[in-house]
């Protein structure tokens, strides 16, 4: 593979610093991402956890450079791949990085595939365009890839159309397409939300296996605390466009440091327990056009005191090494 100028192999695989994204609409400016920070190492799984509208998908789109602009604008921040800031890179080079080093899969695999071409053609196209392969070689590679994502009878199915695949199989095709150019980073945006649990288990298992084989960095964007507990190494919890807590997966589940994380964990029913009281987070997430002053979570927070309602918003306190929480009272939250 060709070497990009400025690549520093010692720099983190992917590092997002102080990312700000806003949407300028006729109803006002919606601040979708207000300073997101995280990093990713090879072979590691980082989960970005949050509810709809928290900015997790927009963050992914900003990293991939597929943000709809207008109305979306990246107003501040850096997205560094091995030390190079993708946001300031010329468009053509950036496209190269995007195609070769960072790939993404989406929730809705059916609409991400073109219904009028066979799956094999769409896969082969990737190789023909980016690797300059001949039709025959590209087709061979396509079959190989479908085999890798464990689609039975890959050789026959390569000439099927997307609608002939089941939901789970389509997601496999999407994964095959994303992995075609051997990316170092894979961003999976709610990859299993539309699937049944048994199929979800298959897909998550496949992703974990492929990740291990390739030592790939995986960013898993999801709202499902169960899936996260099963696969993530580290978690960034997002709320109203900010990463409010970042920690290793065991720490978050055993001792959350941010009231929002804590409340989320207490509000989900568990399969292995009966009769637990579901603690409700009252109210709704704020409108992104009208984020509360101070800590965005303060109107819904049971720990909130005066400083939480005033600017500046709580900084990312270092709770422990490699662990941060944006809460003035993280010690109390940890103590409970």
């Amino acid at each position, binding site marked *: 593979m060709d070497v990009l100028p400025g690549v520093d192999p010692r720099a983190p695989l992917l590092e997002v610093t102080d990312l700000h994204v806003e949407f300028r609409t006729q109803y006002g400016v919606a601040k979708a991402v207000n300073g997101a920070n995280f990093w990713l190492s090879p072979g590691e799984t980082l989960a970005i956890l949050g509810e709809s509208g928290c900015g997790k998908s927009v963050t992914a789109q900003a990293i991939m450079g597929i943000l709809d602009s207008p109305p979306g604008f990246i107003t501040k921040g850096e997205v560094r791949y091995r030390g190079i800031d993708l946001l300031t890179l010329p468009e053509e080079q950036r496209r190269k990085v995007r195609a070769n080093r960072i790939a993404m899969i989406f929730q809705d695999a059916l609409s991400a595939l073109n219904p009028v071409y066979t799956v094999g053609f769409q896969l082969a196209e990737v190789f023909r365009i980016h690797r300059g392969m001949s039709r025959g070689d590209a087709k061979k590679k396509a079959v190989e890839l479908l085999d890798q994502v464990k689609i039975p009878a890959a050789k026959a199915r390569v000439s099927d159309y997307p609608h002939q695949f089941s939901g789970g199989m389509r997601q496999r095709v999407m994964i095959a397409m994303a992995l075609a150019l051997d990316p170092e980073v894979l961003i999976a945006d709610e990859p299993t939300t539309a699937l049944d649990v048994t199929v979800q288990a298959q897909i998550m298992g496949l992703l974990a296996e492929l990740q291990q084989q390739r030592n790939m960095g995986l960013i898993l964007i999801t709202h499902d605390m169960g899936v996260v507990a099963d696969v993530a190494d580290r978690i960034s919890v997002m709320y109203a466009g900010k990463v409010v807590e970042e920690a290793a997966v065991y720490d978050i589940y055993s001792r959350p440091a941010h009231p929002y994380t804590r409340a989320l964990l207490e509000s989900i029913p568990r399969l292995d327990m009966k009769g637990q009281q579901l603690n409700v987070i009252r109210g709704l997430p704020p409108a992104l056009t009208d984020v*509360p002053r101070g800590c965005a979570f*303060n*109107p819904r927070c049971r720990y909130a005191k005066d400083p939480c309602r005033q600017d500046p918003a709580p900084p990312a306190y270092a709770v422990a090494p490699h662990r941060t929480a944006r809460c003035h009272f993280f010690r109390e939250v940890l103590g409970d």
Partner: protein
Amino acid sequence: MSDLNSVTAAEAPDQMSMQPRPRRGKQDKPRSLAGDAWNDLRKSKIFWVAIVLVVVVLLMAAWPTLFTSADPRDCALSRKFAGPSGGAIFGYDFQGCDVYAKTIYGARNSIIVGMVSTAIAGVIGMVVGLSAGFFGGSVDAVLSRFIDIMLAIPFLLAGIVLSSRLSADPNDDGLIAVILTLGLLTWTTGARVMRSAVISSKNQDYVAAGRMLGAGPGRLMLRHILPNSIAAFIVVLTILLGVNIGVEATLSFLGVGLKGDAISWGIAISEATGTARVAAAPLVWPATFLGLTVLAFIMLGDAIRDAFDPKLR
């Protein structure tokens, strides 16, 4: 911001919606969709511009003498293509008739033809489209094939046959025949649009919810499906209105439309087309009036459609 907190604390989980808050605060009077739509229309500039235009045209149609004292049938070949003079501010046409007076008097036939034929087409189209879409199955199959057959008939041929059959009496001015011809031949587009809109809203969950409560087909159609599928239909009708005013001229030109010395914008336009390079005024003015009228109805349709969509409020 303290305000926001207190509200949230007191009324959670019922506040802080992502949606823009409604402009009107607490209201005690019961409201209906039509009532809300009227409230909305009253504030719409487009609506008032359209209304003013429509009222002026309607006045023209009802009482042409309010606008001109000249006689549109007082023509003299000596004045052929003469420029504006006196009351004839638009000049004279190829027969030496007063273009201004003819345009004013033409409004009546054009408006009647346009509005009534569109109304007929609208009623047929709505009934056919709504029944085909709502009942589906064999009703849909029969009605849809009927629409297909209607569309396959060459329009002018059918128009000529129908119109001449309908006004066989030479003393008849042909108005009713033209209206019926247009109404009976032009409902198909509306019916198709209505049918597809009905089919898509029929499968919405709120229709299922109504059905579950035990609502009959009448309530389902009128309360749930029609209001949610009529938007595109209104647009089709407003366009059809302008088209029909024009088509009346074509029929009249072919001798099967308005007969005798009838005056309408359509006739005036088709008469003046051939000589437009010699004198533009006899073409431009009736065309302008026709254009403005169609524009007014399109704006009116748009404003009404928007007013009946609560999401745009």
